[in-house]
């Protein structure tokens, strides 16, 4: 499958999220949305006395922050805000407990049981009871680690159990009935579905010339271009070779043109799966199941719900799990379909008075904000508010004697003093590009003189001026690129 160019949100392009991955991306997306709406954003080194969100035994730097409108303050850990109770977070970490509560509240879940991996006999008996195929997964695992789906018979099951015992440290596993069908991650805020992603297991599409290995490599190159999938390439491992084996392929086989070759059973994006936006293809009935799942749990107004939709009826499905601290990056950067504004919906929910408010086009350097928190040299960092109102932008292309005369340093210093935002960089033929943005048109226009003047030793021969319109997302501050 060749990735198509997808429609991103105009103020959230690849540049805005460059080099931010994983849970940091979730945190940044929600924080940025609030900040752009004029809320005060504070990053914390660690949890504060005021708010103790369950941080899942993970690091907090750059993932723990608060947003405030002056009256109300809300704390967030990654994409999860403080309206999600710690109690629910803990329930969701235990997949069996989640299923139990959902089931009690009439939400369809797969039949299953928790069994220790040491009780081989019990496992196979239970599998026989619910009828093959079955799924086996650790009770508190994540990212698809230790999950085996579509196990078709006892031999396969015993094989998997042995493998689990030697490879992982999990002690308790859920064994449940395998439901075939398309798998969706549905993000719910309040009683609305704001984004749904279909997850397709890692796959490649043949071109009749390239080998499986080459096709994987090509696909990984494509994945690298997607901000969310960038650090999640398809890796050829035991599972992949096994998967190829079942269809009689090796990594050196050459699939036919247009032939889709699946490389894994499970659809986790972290192991190479494809996220396809599917918000518009879900039926209201399925959406309702997702909403009901959250209603069944104690105070969890927003979360991601995993649902398998029955291939025979698009109105039926089973809920596999609820993710209280769900990743949201793939809703904004799918490989097919439309970007869905999940962070916008989250902020709408916490700060309804900011709905429809003019949003700043600015963004900030996440990495340098987080750096002092990572090395613990600061306790907390309160961000400046982004410039408001109409933004003006100009691009100046300067040529002349500009090499080794401190021209760019001079420009940066001047720009920072005048509170201009933008960047300067070398372009071809020894020319230097200076791009500036400000809410004051005068300062932007006057900067032409600064560019002309240059540093002490520089000689400016020529200067081209261009308007920048519409204004793209602008990074706060001024940098030499």
């Amino acid at each position, binding site marked *: 499958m060749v990735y198509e160019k997808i429609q991103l949100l105009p103020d959230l392009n690849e540049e805005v999220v460059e080099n931010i991955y994983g849970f940091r991306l979730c945190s940044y997306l929600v924080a940025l949305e609030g900040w752009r709406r004029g809320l005060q954003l504070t990053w914390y080194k660690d949890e504060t006395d005021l708010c103790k969100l369950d941080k899942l035994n993970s690091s907090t730097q750059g993932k723990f922050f608060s947003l405030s409108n002056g009256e109300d303050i809300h704390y967030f850990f990654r994409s999860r805000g403080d309206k999600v109770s710690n109690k629910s977070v803990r329930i969701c970490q235990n997949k069996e407990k989640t299923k139990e509560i959902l089931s009690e509240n009439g939400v369809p879940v797969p039949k299953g049981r928790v069994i220790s991996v040491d009780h081989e006999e019990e496992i196979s008996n239970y599998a026989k009871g619910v009828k093959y195929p079955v799924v086996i997964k650790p009770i508190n695992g994540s990212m698809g680690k230790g999950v085996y789906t579509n196990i078709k018979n006892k031999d396969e099951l015993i094989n998997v159990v042995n493998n689990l015992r030697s490879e992982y440290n999990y002690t308790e596993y859920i064994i449940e009935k395998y439901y075939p069908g398309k798998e969706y991650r549905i993000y719910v805020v309040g009683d609305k579905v704001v984004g749904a992603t279909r997850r397709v297991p890692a796959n490649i599409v043949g071109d009749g010339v390239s080998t499986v290995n080459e096709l994987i490599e090509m696909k990984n190159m494509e994945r690298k271009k997607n901000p969310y999938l960038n650090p999640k390439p398809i890796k050829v491992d035991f599972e992949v070779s096994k998967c190829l084996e079942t269809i009689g392929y090796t990594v050196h086989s050459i699939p036919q043109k247009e032939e889709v070759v699946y490389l894994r059973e499970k659809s986790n994006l972290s192991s190479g799966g494809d996220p396809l936006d599917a918000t518009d293809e879900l039926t209201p009935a399925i959406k309702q199941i997702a909403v009901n799942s959250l209603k069944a749990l104690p105070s969890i107004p927003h979360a991601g719900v995993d649902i398998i939709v029955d291939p025979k009826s698009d109105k039926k499905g089973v809920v596999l799990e609820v993710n209280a601290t769900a990743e949201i990056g793939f809703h904004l950067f799918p490989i097919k379909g439309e970007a869905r504004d999940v962070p916008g919906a989250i902020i709408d929910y916490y700060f309804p008075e900011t709905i429809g408010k003019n949003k700043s086009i600015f963004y900030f350097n996440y990495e340098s904000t987080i750096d*002092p928190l990572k090395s*613990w*040299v*600061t306790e907390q960092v309160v961000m*400046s508010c982004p410039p408001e109102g109409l933004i003006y932008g100009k691009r100046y292309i300067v040529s002349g004697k500009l090499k080794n005369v401190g021209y760019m340093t001079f420009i940066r210093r001047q720009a920072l003093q005048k509170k201009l935002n933008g960047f300067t*960089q070398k372009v071809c033929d020894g020319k230097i590009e200076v791009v500036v943005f400000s809410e004051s048109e005068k300062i932007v226009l006057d900067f032409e003189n600064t560019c002309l003047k240059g540093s002490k030793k520089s000689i400016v021969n020529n200067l081209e001026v261009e308007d920048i319109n519409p204004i793209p997302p602008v990074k706060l*501050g001024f940098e030499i690129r």
Partner: protein
Amino acid sequence: MQIYKDEWLPNLKDSVPVEAFGYTVSMYSIALEGWRRGLNLKFINKNRRKSEIEYSLEFNGKERKFSVTRGDLVPKEAIKVCINKDLTKKLLIESNVPTPEGEVFEKEVEDNEIIEFAKKLGFPVVIKPSNGTGGAGVIANIKDEIEFRDSLIYVRHELNFPKVIVEKFYNGEDYRLYVIGNEVTGAFKKIPANVIGDGENTIKTLIKIKNEQRNNTPALHKRTIKIDKELHNMLKSQNYTLESTPTIGEQVFLKSKNNVSAGGDSVDITEELTDEIKKIAIKASNAIPGLVQCGVDMIVDNANNSGVILEVNSRPHITAHLFPWHGQARDIPKSIIDYYFPETKDMSLEQQNLFYFDFKHIFDTFQSGIAKEITIPKVPSGVILSKIFHLIGDLNKVSYCKWIRKTCRDLHLNGSVQYTQHGVDIVASGSFESISKISEILKGDSPQNTLVKSVEECDWTKPVKIGFEINEEYKSGENVDSNTETKIKYLRDGYFPLKISEKTNKSKGNSKSKTIKKERKNLNEDYYKKKYNMVIKSTSWRITKPLRFFGRLIKKIKNN
């Protein structure tokens, strides 16, 4: 490289990060003193400029805001008085504080009128701009009308300070006294830029040596003696050139102005002050309502034990008190924090003095406008132990250091990792339990892909920067330390060209870093080409092409 004189404050030794050198030392040292006493410290970004960062200190619910050295107990009215020299003079006279007779002249006033005034006042006189700083445009000891006329034209019309003050010139020494809470807590004498001969080196070399020493003084960083027209004239009048060699102990003055920023020296004279002089300074601060802390500029006539007040500053820098060129450093930060937080006055800071905080990140994020407020973690309390671990082995330094940082963070240890030639040095500071734990971890099984050959554990006695940073920049281990020792020794004995030994050290590293730079440059060029192509090929660029074309056309038409 930091060089410390014996008379400098031990609690500032190795505790001022290089990013806070220069005037920033004033602010940093006060914030540091408060922070070490356990106050909550927060920096506030009012302006993107380094020297104007504000900060707040909070203790048990009491918050005090500071701007450089001035706390919020000084009312706005007092600040306004200090800025207006005319008003200052008026209040001083009202309180019977001696100050030179004189007057301020607005820019509308004719030169002749001012000349008449000077004649009436009687020579010698001083002309100074009413809003100048750092001694710019100040002409002292003007002896007659002709000289006065030239000086007046120069200051008003050439230097473009139309509003001037003309006052009586007093002969004496130029003192700066620091007053807080009716007490003089420090005073220094300003003397013009000078060098002292050693019988061997030329004036030019002596200036070079002195400038290197000045650059290595936290407070004088980048405030060197500049070789300019004035300096040449000054030497000429003494029958010297830059190539002359003064005899041993001979002091050659290079400038006429006393200002430290013009290359002048500061000499601590706190002990020598008479009660009368102190009283004048305190009286001056009391003359301005609410001015509980200030720096007082005074011309002191030691023979008669009297002085006149030139100026009162509500927000003086204290760098020269902290790092005087000669004499004992004075702990002004202590007196300021004592005044603002008397409840913390008698705290023992023996352990806290071994911590300081980072300034680089604060300045960077403030300057780029990203952050509005930054809170510094609290100073460590309880019994603290500091150790250095010299690790030798085959390590993947990047991942190993990250692992160390995470481990230390989990143990609530402050410190740093430093790359060395054969491994890394780890400085860790924390509770006894945490230190023994990290020692155990470092000496135990190392993580995958690393082979630690030896771990040497020693006590660490220098101050530790709060947080845990990874320093990738190479430091060639113990050699550096011994070098510093010899340098300091030489410094105490006399003068020694500091940079020379450093340069030879550097040159080794340079060849390496040069090739890296070259590689990077190549990479960069490719990158820019790519970037440029990207821009050229981008749809927005192509779409706006006609716009740009017409823009240029219109400009051409306009120009024609």
